[in-house]
C-alpha cells in the first residue's frame, strides 16, 4: 500500500485535471475550507470535515432543470462532459452519499443528479487529520479511494477497480506502508468514542416511542430563527424548490435548495399549510431524520456529521437537540 505526502497528492490531483473535474479541499482567502479546484487555494486535506456539505458537488445549491431557447427548443443537460472527482468525504459523509444515491435513484431516477454523479470518483479522507488533530473515522469502503493520514503521510487505500487504476498512477517513491500500520490505524479508528451516535440512537428511540412531548418541540422552536442553515448544511437534506426565470430571451427552469424550516415550504396556494407553525417545522426537522426515514428507508438519515450543530446560531442542531431529549426523557 502506498503512502503519499500532501505535495505528492497535490501533484497527483493536478495530473488528473485533464480527465476529471477535480474538487479537493482548498483553503480560501480568509482560511475557510471548501471543496474547490486546485487553482482556488492551497490543498487543505487536514482540518476535519469540510464545513460545506460535500454532496453539494452532485446536488448544488442552484441547478438548471432545463433551458428553453428563443426557438422554443428544449435543452436538457446531459451527463457532464468531464466526470467529477471529489476528494474530502469523511466516513460520515460517505454514509450520507450512499443514502442520497439511493434517494435520488429509487422510484424515479433524478437524471440531473446522476448527470454529475455517474462516472464520478469519490475519495475519502480519514485518520489523524481531524480538527485539532482529532482522529477521523476510517470509512473502509463506500468510496473509490480513501486517504488515511498516519500523522506524516496519507495511506492510499483503493476500494474499487477505478480507484485501484487511478491510485496506481500516483507517484510516491519508497512509500510502502510498513507492516502493521493499517492495523494500528484501524484499531485507533475502532476505538473512537461513539457518544454522539449513541445519543442520537437513543433520541431516535425516544421519539419513535412517543416519549417526547409537544411542549418540548415548542421550546426548541422558540429558538429557531428560520435561518435554514441546518438544512443547507446537511448532506442528506435533498429538498429543492423549482421556479422559472427568463434570461436573455431564454427561459430557464431552475432548482435551488429549499428548507422545511420555512413557512412557505408546505403552504398551498389556498393558504392552507400543514406545517404552518414553527413547532411543526422544528419537529419535522428532527423527526424526519430520526423517525420518518427509519420507517421509509429502514435507517436514520442523520449520519452524525455535526454540520447542523456547527451552523446553527442558537445551538439547536441535531446533536444539541438529541442531547436534551436524552437528558430529559430517558
Amino acid at each position, binding site marked *: 500500500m502506498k503512502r503519499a505526502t500532501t505535495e505528492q497528492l497535490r501533484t497527483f490531483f493536478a495530473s488528473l485535471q485533464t480527465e476529471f473535474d477535480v474538487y479537493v479541499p482548498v483553503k480560501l482567502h480568509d482560511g*475557510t475550507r*471548501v471543496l474547490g479546484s486546485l487553482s482556488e487555494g492551497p490543498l487543505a486535506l487536514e482540518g476535519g470535515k469540510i464545513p460545506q456539505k460535500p454532496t453539494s458537488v452532485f446536488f448544488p445549491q442552484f441547478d438548471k432543470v432545463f433551458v428553453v431557447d428563443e426557438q422554443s427548443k428544449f435543452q436538457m443537460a446531459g451527463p457532464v462532459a468531464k466526470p467529477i472527482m471529489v476528494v474530502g468525504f469523511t466516513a460520515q459523509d460517505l454514509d450520507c452519499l450512499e443514502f442520497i444515491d439511493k434517494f435520488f435513484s429509487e422510484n424515479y431516477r433524478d437524471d440531473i443528479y446522476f448527470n454529475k454523479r455517474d462516472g464520478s470518483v469519490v475519495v475519502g479522507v480519514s485518520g489523524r487529520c481531524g480538527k485539532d488533530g482529532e482522529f477521523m473515522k476510517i470509512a473502509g469502503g463506500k468510496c473509490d479511494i480513501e486517504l488515511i493520514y498516519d500523522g506524516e503521510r496519507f495511506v492510499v487505500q483503493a476500494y474499487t477497480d477505478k480507484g485501484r487504476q487511478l491510485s496506481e498512477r500516483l507517484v510516491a517513491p519508497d512509500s510502502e506502508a510498513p507492516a502493521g500500520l493499517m492495523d494500528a490505524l484501524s484499531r485507533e479508528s475502532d476505538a473512537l468514542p461513539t457518544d454522539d451516535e449513541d445519543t442520537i440512537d437513543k433520541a431516535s428511540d425516544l421519539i419513535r416511542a412517543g416519549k417526547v412531548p409537544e411542549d418540548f418541540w415548542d421550546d426548541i422552536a422558540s429558538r429557531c430563527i428560520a435561518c435554514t442553515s441546518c438544512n443547507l448544511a446537511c448532506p442528506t437534506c435533498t429538498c429543492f424548490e423549482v421556479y422559472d426565470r427568463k434570461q436573455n430571451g431564454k427561459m430557464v427552469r431552475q432548482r435551488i435548495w429549499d428548507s422545511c424550516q420555512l413557512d412557505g415550504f408546505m403552504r398551498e396556494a389556498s393558504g392552507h399549510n400543514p406545517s404552518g407553525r414553527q413547532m411543526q417545522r422544528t419537529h419535522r426537522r428532527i423527526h424526519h431524520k430520526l423517525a420518518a426515514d427509519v420507517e421509509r428507508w429502514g435507517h436514520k438519515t442523520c449520519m452524525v456529521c455535526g454540520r447542523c450543530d456547527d451552523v446553527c*446560531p442558537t445551538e439547536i442542531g441535531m446533536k444539541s437537540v438529541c442531547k436534551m431529549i436524552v437528558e430529559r426523557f430517558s
Partner: protein
Amino acid sequence: MRRTLTTCPYCGTGCQFYLVTNGEGKLVGVEPSSNHVVSKGQLCVKGWNAFNFANHPDRLTVPLVRKNGNLVEASWDEALDLIATRLKEVQDAHGNDSVAFFSSAKTTNEENYVMMKLARAVFKTNNVDHCARLCHSSTVAGLAATFGSGAMTNSISCVEKADCILVTGSNTTEQHPLIGTRIINAVKGGAKLIVADNRKIRLANFADMHIRWENGTDVAFLNGLMHVIIKEGLADEEFIRTRTEGFDKLKEVVEEFTPERTAEICKITPVEVEKAARMFAGAERAMIIYSMGITQHTHGVDNVKSCANLAMLTGNVGKEGTGVNPLRGQNNVQGACDLGALPNVYSGYQKVTDDGVRAKFEKAWGVQDLPGNVGLTVTTAINAAADGTLKALYVMGENPMMSDPDQHHVRDALEKLDFLVVQDIFPTPTTKLADVVLPAACFAEKDGTFTSTERRVQRVRKACDPPGQARQDWEILADLARRMGYDGLTYSSPKEIMDEITRVTPIYGGMQYDRIDQVGLQWPCPNRDHPGTPVLHVGKFARGLGLFSPAEYRPSAELPDDEYPFVLSTGRCYFHFHTGTMTRRSRLLDREERFPYVEVHPDDAKRLNIHDRFPVMVSTRRGEVKALARVSDIVIPGHLFMTFHFEEGAANVLTNNALDPVAKIPEYKVCAAQIRGV
C-alpha cells in the same frame, strides 16, 4: 466555479460569505465564511439567498431617458450629457441649492464618498443626504450630543459578555438575525434580558421582563428607570463624577418620573418600572441595544439621549459588555454616514460649517468656494420639492416613493421637480417618475467596502459582471463629474478612492485595503499602525466628558382618536428587506411573504369582524391601503403593525410626515389609523 469573499448586502450586522460563480460567470450560490468574526460560518435566510436576485430578468441594463413622456433606451453618452446639461441649467437658473443628491446606504463607502464629493466639489451644494435620515439620524444627533460620536459604542461580540441586556425598539432576531441569536445565547448563558417593546417579538420568549409599553412613551419609561435608580442609590456615582457633566439637570428632570407617573404614561405597572431599573442597574455589565423603535419618532433624538443618559448613569459606557448600541439597518448605512453623505458633514463627521475643515477639503480636492451652509435632508428635500424651491434631484440607490413617509406627498413632490435622475439596479416606483434612469451594478458586481453596525470596515468584492450596460455607481458619478468639467473624480479603482478617503478622514486613516483584506477593522483607526477600536469611549468620551442630556416626555405627533382609533406602527419582516427591491426577487424569500399584511390583535379582530388572512383596509388621514389581516397577539390591543416592503400595499401611503425637530426623522412608529374588513 469561483468563490469570492464579500460582505452581505442586507442588514448592518456585516456577515461575510463567499459568492459562488459558475463557469458562465453567473452567481449560483453562497457559502458562509467559517472564520469571519461575526458570521462564524453561519448566515441568516437572507444571506443564504443573497445571490438569487442578481440574475433576475427585471434588472436595469440600459440607460433610459424620458422622451414624449416615455422612458426609452439611450446611450450612456446621451444620458449623462443630458444630466450634466440639465443640472447645470437648473443651477444657473435657480442657484446651487436648487439641486439635491440622495446617496445610498446600499452602495459602498467609496461610492458614498464620490457622491458627496460630486455634490460638494462639483455642484457646490451640501444638499446631500441618504436614508440614514429615515433610520438613525436621531442616533447620530443624539449620541454625538451626549458622547461625541454617533455610532454603536461597542462590538457585536460584547453581547455575550453582558450581564444584562436591555433591548428596546429592536426586533433583533428578525432584523439583525445573527446579533439576535447572540442575545438568545447570552440569555442561555445566564444574562438577564429586558425587552421593552410592545410587540411580542421572538426575544420576548427569552426575556426576564417583557415590558409592553404604549408606543412613543420611550422617554417617560427611560426617565422612570433613571428616577428609581437615583432614588434607590443604584447610580454609578464615581462614573458620574469622573466621566460626565450635567448630572444635576438630569436629576431634576427625572425627579418627576415616579414609577406611578411613568406607569400611567406608558400604560404599564409601577412595579415593572422599579423591577427593570433594579435589574439593569444591578448588573455588573449592562448593555442597551436599540433600533428603529427608538429612533423613528418626533422625539427620536430625545429617546436616544435618554438611552445614553441611562448608560452613563449606571457607568455602562467604555467597557466590554456594555454601551449604547444602535443597530444599523442597512449593510452600509454606517459607512454612508461615515463618508459624509450627510448635509452637515464631510467624511469622518467633519463639519461643513467649520472654515478650517472646508479649507482642508478645498485643498485636497483642488477646488474653491465649498459651500458652508448646512444642506437639505432627505425629508426636507422632499418638502422643498413639494413647495417648489428644490428643482432637481439625483437619487442613487434609494426608493423614496416606497421608503419615505406619506407616499402621496412624495409623489407630488417628485412630480413637481424639473428634473429627476434615478440610478438603481431594478425598476422601482421611484424610477417610474424619473427623467433619466441609470442602470447600476449590484453588490456582487463591484469592489469596495461596507462599514457594519459595529463600525467594521469590510471588503466587498466583485464576483460577476454587471448585466448589460450597467456600471458601478462610482464609475457613473465619476463620468458625470468629467462631463461637468471636473477631473478630480477620476479614479482607476475603488482602492484609489479609499486611499484618498484615508488621507482626508481621520477615523478611516488606517483603512487601507491591504489592512482589511481578510478581517475588517473598526473605526476610529487613525493610522496604519492602529489596531482599530472595538469599544468607544474607553477612559474618555469622544467629546471629553459625557453630557447628560435629559428630555421631557412629549407625546407623539398624531395620537389615536375616535375617527382613527388605532396606533399604527411600521417596520420590516424577517424575509424582506426595506422596499423589497431585492428580496421580492429572490425566490425563497418572496415565497415566504407574498402579500402585504397588517397585524391586528385577536380582540380587535373579533370586535371588528376581521378574519385571519382575509383582506382589510387600513386608513389614516393620508390615505388607505389594502392588506391581508394577520390576527395575532404579537401586537397589543389597539395597535396595528405593517411592513413597508410591498408596492401593492405600501405602508408609507399611511405614515405621518411629522419630523423630529433636530434630526428631521419621520415618525414611522406612531400614527393614528383605522382598520375595517373589505
